[in-house]
């Protein structure tokens, strides 16, 4: 044995036995003795075994502690993630089995090195790999490595539908959908409480109103109360009612009659600057209406000893009337609620307003903000359109705009509006279809169902008014 001398010398040394020079020859003979050689051989073998055992233990500990990250899963959603032994450096596993996957709804495929399945329960869950590494005898027990798998709950199951407090002085119905004739057209309108409000039992903040006015005019109003404002539900309700009441007032009715002359002049091109006069009329009349609504909100806030901000609400309204020359549409808007008119063939879209969006999500402006009336852009908040005919007039709150149009750039695109119509017609995940026909007896029910479409992250109140 080559290093027998060294081995024994070290052993003796560590036990305080030093071989002096004059005993060296004796020591050499001692090492040559058969019996001692046998002991040495065994000693060496045991040492090697001991080291090998330690390496195995160390390797097992390494595997058990090795952080393994696998992507999070979601209940009910198909899951596929690599679970690759080679990638983890587990080439020295001589046997393994994986336990605890079935109860999670998952399977492991050694062929594809993949975990797949549809998770059935949520939480910070574990499954385990039971393994043996190279160097372990066959009869050795398996070692256990736990792997963390985070399974998210299915968000759909987390939403609750709690009733709002009917005893609240400013309570309003959670969901309203109506179908009604309006002028020579029809109005289908729905306003529904968003899931974000339903899950905590709070109120619908959106609102709407409509009215046939005495002189052939019709008005449709949509308002979206700011969820962060205490009495926004009242703010939006007051704003809607305020617009309708303004135009029902005899003074307003009389002033709207003036418009008939202006339109005649414009159509026959008899007057000078007819376009300018029309624009001025719209600005004056609708501007007054908007300002009166603002004032009403202000006095309500004062009387109730709340701040005007507590009533924060966006506001859009459209007036329309049929003339021989076509339809006149007048509009006003503050906030992030679009108004769009589609021509008869649905080949052109006219946006009646621009929308107030901020740098960050959710940022917008409200009718309760005094600064909008002083702003130089106030005059651009009005819309006027003379159109021979139209197929649809759409008005919506951001609860519809956000999921369906996402960004402003999509609003002028007729293709997007055609998509939107197709969506209403049933081309959607839930196959909810609205047959936009005036003779459809289920019209309101169909729209109400459509309004419940699923869109992750978009759970605000939803309001949609369609004149067709």
């Amino acid at each position, binding site marked *: 044995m080559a290093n027998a001398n060294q081995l024994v010398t070290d052993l003796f040394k560590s036990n305080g036995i030093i071989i002096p020079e004059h005993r060296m020859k004796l020591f050499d003979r001692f090492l040559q003795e058969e019996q001692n050689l046998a002991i040495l051989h065994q000693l060496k073998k045991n040492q090697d075994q001991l080291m090998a055992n330690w390496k195995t233990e160390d390797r097992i500990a390494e595997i058990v502690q090795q952080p393994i990250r696998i992507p999070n899963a979601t209940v009910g959603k198909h899951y596929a993630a690599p679970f690759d032994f080679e990638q983890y450096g587990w080439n020295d596993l001589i046997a393994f089995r994986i336990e605890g996957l079935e109860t999670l709804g998952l399977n492991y495929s050694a062929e594809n090195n993949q975990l797949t399945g549809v998770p059935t329960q949520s939480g910070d869950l574990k499954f385990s790999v039971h393994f043996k590494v190279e160097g372990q005898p066959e009869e050795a027990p398996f070692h256990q490595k736990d792997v963390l798998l985070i399974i998210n*709950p299915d968000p759909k199951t987390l939403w609750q539908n709690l009733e709002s407090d009917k005893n609240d002085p400013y309570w309003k119905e959670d969901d309203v959908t109506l179908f009604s004739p309006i002028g020579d057209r029809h109005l289908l309108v729905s306003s529904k409480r968003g899931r974000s409000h339903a899950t905590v039992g709070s109120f619908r903040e959106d609102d709407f109103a409509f009215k046939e006015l005495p002189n052939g005019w019709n008005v449709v109003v949509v308002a979206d109360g700011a969820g962060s404002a205490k009495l926004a539900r009242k703010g939006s309700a007051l704003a809607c009612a305020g617009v309708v009441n303004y135009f029902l007032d005899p003074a307003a009715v009389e002033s709207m009659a003036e418009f008939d002359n202006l339109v005649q002049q414009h159509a026959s091109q008899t007057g000078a600057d007819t376009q300018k006069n029309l624009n001025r009329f719209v600005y004056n009349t609708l501007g007054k209406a908007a300002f009166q609504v603002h004032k009403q909100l202000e006095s309500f806030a004062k009387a109730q000893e709340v701040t005007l901000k507590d009533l924060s609400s966006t506001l859009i309204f459209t007036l329309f009337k049929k003339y021989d020359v076509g339809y006149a549409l007048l509009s006003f808007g503050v906030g992030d609620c679009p108004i769009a008119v589609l021509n008869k063939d649905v080949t052109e879209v006219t946006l009646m307003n621009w929308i107030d969006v901020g740098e960050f999500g959710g940022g917008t402006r409200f009718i309760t903000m005094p600064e909008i009336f002083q702003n130089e852009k106030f005059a651009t908040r009005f819309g006027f359109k003379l159109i021979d005919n139209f197929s649809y007039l759409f008005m919506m709150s951001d609860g519809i705009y956000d999921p369906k149009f996402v*960004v402003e750039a999509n609003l002028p695109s007729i293709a997007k509006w055609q998509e939107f119509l197709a969506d209403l017609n049933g081309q959607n995940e839930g196959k909810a279809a609205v047959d936009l026909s005036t003779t459809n007896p289920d019209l309101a029910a169909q729209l109400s169902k459509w309004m419940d479409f699923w869109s992750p992250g978009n759970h605000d109140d939803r309001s949609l008014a369609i004149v067709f």
Partner: protein
Amino acid sequence: MTGEPIEAVKNGVQVMISSLRQNPQAIETAFISIITFDSEAKQVVPLTDLASFQMVDIRATGTTSLGEALKLVSTCIDNEVTKTTAEQKGDWKPLVFIMTDGIPTDDWQIGLEEFRKRKTAFTVACAAGSAADSALLKLITENVVSLDTADSQSIAKFFTWVSASIGVSSTKVEDGGQEVTGMGELPPPPAELNIVT
């Protein structure tokens, strides 16, 4: 921050994430990023949606580079928080939570200057234990809370309150785009948290 407090912070974040995962609004909309600061500031988790988020091991030893951290959170906001344009939908304003158990050892004013230029829905700072300087944190944000001792129980309470605050404010910020301006609009903090006025 070492030993029991850092372990408690780790646990606190875990518990917070688990509880936010039960909030449907949060799980569909919230993104989370973690920045640690000791001798240097490091973004240990980039802005990640809550559903995909996985906690990493966090360590904090040595000094307290608060200024670096404020500078880093500012650049992270610039790079990771999307602003609204006509073609792209913007993110909600970020909520920032700062927790420290020491006094800054670097030039924190420069970092603060950067941070002030960024818009947040709100920022809450927490002085954990007696070695932290809540008066200094008060210069960063109006909303400062303090823990008498940085033990695991107090830290756990802080994170429970943070989760509740995220739940409330994410809905608020979203609904109206209005800022949550003071702590009066957040859920009431537990007894372990002292509001620094």
